[in-house]
């Protein structure tokens, strides 16, 4: 055995900083043309959703009964609807509803799924039993039936009436809540399984051995390592929420009367298609097709970028 002195050259060299999970994922996404394209599409939809309200502030009062059901033309690129309103404006305003519903529903579902999954996975015992029972029971009922039942139950209910946080559950607020409280199951399952795995890893054991409390371990060591899953689920859940809004609006249980949405446009066009008025349905379906495709591809690429196991 020999002893060696430390190499001064090595000591003097700057320590190379490793890339974080997020930084690495961002770099990978940036290099992926499909992910960039989809991100731009999503960004454009968000911009349109925000901008449409300013471009068409008085859309509901733009009816012109003498221009009803006109096909696409230079004046109306996407044609006009039954009240003579511009279908392009309606489609853009519909994007706002869809994007809002997608965001709000997931803003409820993902944190809920994350919280329940972490609690069940980490604490185990009866808490886990309760969480598993809850999501198993919910999952055993067909989602769309439950959604419809919940929307029916919400009919006519207004919470905090007259205050600035008034929630009309018959309309779009009810849609957020109904979709949110029924869409957390997938996230919860994944988070719970990942938590079960993480809590037995060495770094968590070390944290426990060093005397850290359970809450601190959860907040500092486990949840941060689950966030990428939450984000992926948020992206993919967006698609589900948009589709569900369309289905519910198609069934007359979605947004309030007068609120333009793709679901109500497709529902309206159901009557129009028979007599050859295709433009409203095509506009809504095409708008939905593009955003759903973009979200799906982006979600896939995000999962690839954030999940080390999927890297080749």
């Amino acid at each position, binding site marked *: 055995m020999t002893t060696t002195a430390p190499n001064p050259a090595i000591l003097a060299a700057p320590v190379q900083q490793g890339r974080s999970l997020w930084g690495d994922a961002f770099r990978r996404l940036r290099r992926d043309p499909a992910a960039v394209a989809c991100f731009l599409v999503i960004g454009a939809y968000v911009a349109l959703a925000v901008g449409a309200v300013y471009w068409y502030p008085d859309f509901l009062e733009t009816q012109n009964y003498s221009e009803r059901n006109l096909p696409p033309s230079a004046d109306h690129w996407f044609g006009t609807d039954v009240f003579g309103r511009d279908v392009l404006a309606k489609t853009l305003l519909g994007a706002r509803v869809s994007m809002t519903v997608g965001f709000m529903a997931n803003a409820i579902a993902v944190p809920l799924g994350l919280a329940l999954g972490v609690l069940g996975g980490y604490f185990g015992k009866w808490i886990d039993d309760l969480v598993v029972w809850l999501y198993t029971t919910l999952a055993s009922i067909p989602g769309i039936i439950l959604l419809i039942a919940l929307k029916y139950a919400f*009919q006519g209910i207004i919470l905090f009436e007259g205050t600035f946080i008034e929630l009309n559950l018959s309309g779009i607020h009810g849609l957020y809540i109904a979709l949110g409280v029924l869409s957390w199951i997938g996230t919860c399952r994944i988070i719970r399984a990942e938590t079960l795995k993480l809590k037995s890893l060495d770094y968590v054991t070390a944290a426990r051995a060093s005397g850290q409390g359970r809450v601190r371990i959860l907040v500092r060591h486990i949840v941060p390592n689950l966030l990428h899953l939450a984000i992926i689920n948020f992206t993919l859940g967006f698609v589900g929420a948009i589709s569900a809004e369309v289905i519910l609006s198609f069934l007359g249980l979605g947004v309030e009367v007068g609120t333009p949405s793709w679901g109500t446009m497709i529902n*309206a066009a159901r*009557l129009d298609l028979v007599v050859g008025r295709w433009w409203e349905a095509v506009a809504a379906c095409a708008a939905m097709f593009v955003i759903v495709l973009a979200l799906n591809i982006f979600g896939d690429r995000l999962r690839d970028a954030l999940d080390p196991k999927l890297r080749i």
Partner: protein
Amino acid sequence: MGKFYAIAGLLVLALVLAPVGFLALRKKADYGDRTVLYQTYSAKVKSIDPATCGDTTSASMQGQVYESLYTYHYLKRPVEIIPQLAAEMPEISEDSRIYTFRLKPNIHYAPNPCFGIKPDGSFRTRTVRADDFALGLKRVADFHLQTPLAWSFLSERIVGLDEYRARCEAYREGDFSRYDMEVEGLEAVDDLTLRIHLKAPFPQLIYVLAMQTYAPVPRELIDYHLATEPGPGDERRPIPISRRTAQITQVEQIVGTGPYQLTHWQQGALMVFERNPEYRHGFYPTEGEPGDAEAGLLDDAGKPLPFVDVLHYECILEDMPAWLRFLSRQTDVSGIPRDVFDTVITPDRDLLDKWAKQGLRLSKFTDPTVFWLAFNMDDPVMGASKSLRHAMCLAFNVEDLIEVLYNGRGRRAVNVLPSSFPAHPIAGPGPYYRYDMEEARRQLDQARSELAAVGRLDANDQFPLLTVDLGGRDETSRRMGEFIRQQFEPLGLRVRIELNDWPTLQQKVHNKQCQLYAMGWHADYPDAENFLQLYYGPNIEKGTNNSNYRNPEFDALYDQVTVMPDEHDRNEVYARMVHMLNEDCPVLLLVEPMYYVLTYDWVKGYKRHPFAYGMTKHLRIDTQLRREMGGR
């Protein structure tokens, strides 16, 4: 591998074809060489019991089976009431309180096991008696049967009938001994004479008794079908009282005198009526109104009815599939869905040539129906400001509504009565049932003061959010909701549209939970009283005055007019009552709809009747022509 793909391919093919095969194996209706009329209907039949009938779909189906004392002449307009099971018009006492009805002899019920079974296994029948009508009226008054519509016409009318209803409450639903209780005002003098004693003159009684709701009911039906059930062997055993229901709900329980008997009923899918072999008292009319003979409507004059052996009704809720079925010649009669209207009808409201060449014929009718938006007068906002109601009436462009959502099929309702009623022109148009935004704004300014005085403006001194309830969740209702918003928002009123299914809306209206809601009324008989009772104060409790309108002066006139025998005098009073409604505006009047009906050339004798049901017996099908034209 090739074998795998072959098997997989076959499996997929088998799965795809399985439903087709399954449908092909389903037994198709086979009516042999009998003449069949094929039609669709678009709402569920809620009742097959005459007493509980309360909707037009049920009434039109029941009209094939049940008959009452009087009916309407099929062809004459203005409508004319004629005897049906009665032999003649009633004998009315001098004080107009006693009506004596003589029945036609030898009118038989459709054969039914409740009358007994012949040795050859066929069912017996019996003739109609006066006490069957008394039983029918007692059932309408039965506390245990849900008869809101039928009872609303008889309540407080017949001596002893209200007391009978009250006494029924003490009986259990399954205890049919209550039908043995005497009612002072219902007297079966003999088998063919019925006498009704009224508390006060009621000139509309004849019209009321032309509704099949008051059809005769044989006691055997109650004792056999509702009180007993099949037992071991051929015997029947009593149903325990606790398990009995008083309502007629099964096909075999239908016992009527009409031209058809219901032989098959699949709720929400199919109804089949077949010729009643005992029906011998109906004949095609020999007179009509001018033009009927030229239209071929008197070709079958004097011939025995019915012409068609089987009525095959399919329930198709959506109008577009029903329309496509009609176009493929699978049905004989159809309305025109709103969305294809412009492709069928010319701007001059005639049938496009291309359809006429395909053997279609167009008939246009204005039914005695009025649609409106009702203001709930008990609502603290709607009830508090007459000017607000005026403003909303003036701001609503009904002509646009008719053009945009009705394809021009209708006319603006200008007072609460249908325009075909004699009192309608006497009353004239209401001053607020027109489109005038300037006047609407003036009225709204006035409304602001009225609502401020009762503290009903919101914190910013603005009009509160108004809620309009509609009875439907479909696209048509949604469009109606959007249109309503478009009318009120230029006035500065904020409006929320609430879409409900129909039972929910009815419940909300009943509980007075609505502020404004869409409603309408189809005349039951050609007397303005039928519409004006919707605003009579005491009818709030009965549920027919659901705008909750109260006006003592109006109520006093109503009490006075309902006992006036002379129709001309009545119309003068009706006009005064309509003036009050025109001023108070408890409803925002919308449309008197116009109906366009298409029939194929092979359908003969079609003429829509505004009031009567059960007129299908007058239709004749040229089956040879139908086959030649590619029909069924």
